[in-house]
């Protein structure tokens, strides 16, 4: 049966690196047009899971479906354009902010206009004076914003975010959250967002996946889950781990 409301589906996905299990029998769905937050301690396999959705990694066993089609049926560059990812480790390349923003266009032999770049920059809370500054001279938070804008240049249907606000000040966090909520509402973009901040997860997620040691422990509607998963929260906070 085809579910139009499912953007990504994991079926018994396992992922191993050098005989070390990273993901263990993960099955679940990410709903189309919704924001799902992904929480769990460090080493739970969250980033690996995100990279699989973008096709940077492949499962050792199991299947992943993107809009009801096996991920393997997509041409990799088309998949990655459609499923954008912003990683915590996404580097700013050498050059100006404009050159960074133009990167997705350049990869497709297209030209980015200055006014388009300014519009995307303003969307993430940076004004036009940043356009010709060297990307690597910006602060960590500003670099993260450029990184988000750069991924948005591809106008992806699915957006994967890995702790993108961890380096930002509270005002910037609010701006970014608002921006992504707007994108989600306006374009029905499916967003999967890894966060270490429980309050953020509660605030922005329609759905939540709780992961631990490579397994999906709990998943479902955020409102219900956060009111009934005290054990999980306690486990990961009392264990000295970040969420």
């Amino acid at each position, binding site marked *: 049966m085809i579910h139009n409301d499912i953007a990504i589906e994991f079926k018994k996905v396992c992922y191993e*690196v*050098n005989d070390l299990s990273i993901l263990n029998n993960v099955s679940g769905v990410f709903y189309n047009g919704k924001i799902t937050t992904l929480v769990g301690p460090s080493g739970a396999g969250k980033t690996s899971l995100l990279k699989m959705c*973008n*096709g*940077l*990694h*492949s499962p050792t066993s199991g299947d992943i479906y993107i809009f009801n089609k096996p991920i*393997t049926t997509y041409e*990799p*560059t*088309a998949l*990655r*354009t459609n499923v*954008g*990812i912003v*990683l915590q*480790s*996404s*580097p700013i*390349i050498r050059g100006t902010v404009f050159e960074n923003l133009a*990167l*997705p266009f350049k*990869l*497709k032999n297209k030209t980015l206009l200055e006014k388009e770049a300014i519009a995307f920059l303003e969307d993430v809370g940076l004004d036009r004076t940043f356009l010709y500054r060297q990307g690597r001279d910006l602060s960590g938070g500003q670099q993260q914003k450029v990184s988000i804008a*750069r*991924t948005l240049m*591809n106008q992806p249907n699915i957006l994967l975010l890995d702790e993108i606000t961890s380096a930002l000040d509270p005002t910037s966090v609010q701006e970014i959250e608002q921006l992504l909520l707007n994108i989600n509402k306006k374009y029905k973009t499916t967003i999967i967002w890894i966060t270490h901040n429980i309050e953020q997860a509660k605030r922005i997620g329609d759905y939540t996946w709780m992961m631990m040691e490579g397994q999906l422990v709990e998943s479902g509607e955020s409102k219900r889950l956060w009111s009934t998963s005290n054990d999980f929260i306690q486990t990961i906070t009392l264990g000295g781990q970040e969420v």
Partner: protein
Amino acid sequence: MTYSTLALTLIFVLIPLILSKTLKLDLEKDTIIATVRSIIQLMIVGYVLKWVFEADSIIYILLMILLMIVAATLNARKKGKAIRGITWKIAVTLVIVEVVTQGILLGFQIVPATAQYIIPISGMLIGNSMVLSILFLNRFTAEIESSRDEIELLLSLGGTPKQAVHRQLTSAIRASMIPTIESQKTIGLVQLPGMMSGQIIGGADPVQAIQFQILILFGLLTTAALSSILVGFLSYPTLFNERMQLLRSSAL
């Protein structure tokens, strides 16, 4: 030069041995091995070349070139073990370099088609190609390891493997070619090349020796460009799998 006079040149081996021992550089064993190997190898090559020159047969010339390519490949591949199929990639590169350079030299009748010219020139060009391949592989594998995040970023934005490693590829090609270009800028001013010096010591006309040296220098430029570019473009696809994913260094 008599063999007894030649034996006196071993003083030049004794000096680094004594220095190594005194300063505890731990290079004595390697120095002795290098000395013994060079004597044996050069003696063998000397007699083999004499035999090949006298026979003047195309079969023997081809066998000598094949031997050089095999030896150069086995040496260069050690630096690129992280790249799948590096042995045949280097071998193909050396064969192409040899075919192109000798094709030009013999095709335009720049040098006579005899063993006396083909074999020494092939030796110099294949040797240079081997060094270039090693320089390229050293730099390229180091660049890839230090730029994994950048390469994955370009892939994640929809780039192809070629686009993702373009900077590392061109940087390694440039780095491996620069020593050849730089050394040519100072040639004759700082150092007199070995081949030219050898000819002059052997009694040849210095002007003719220089003409042959220029021929070799220009040949080395083509060799440098072809070697690093060919090894580079043959190597980078093996860093990725069929899903355009950058392989972990342990999986290469």
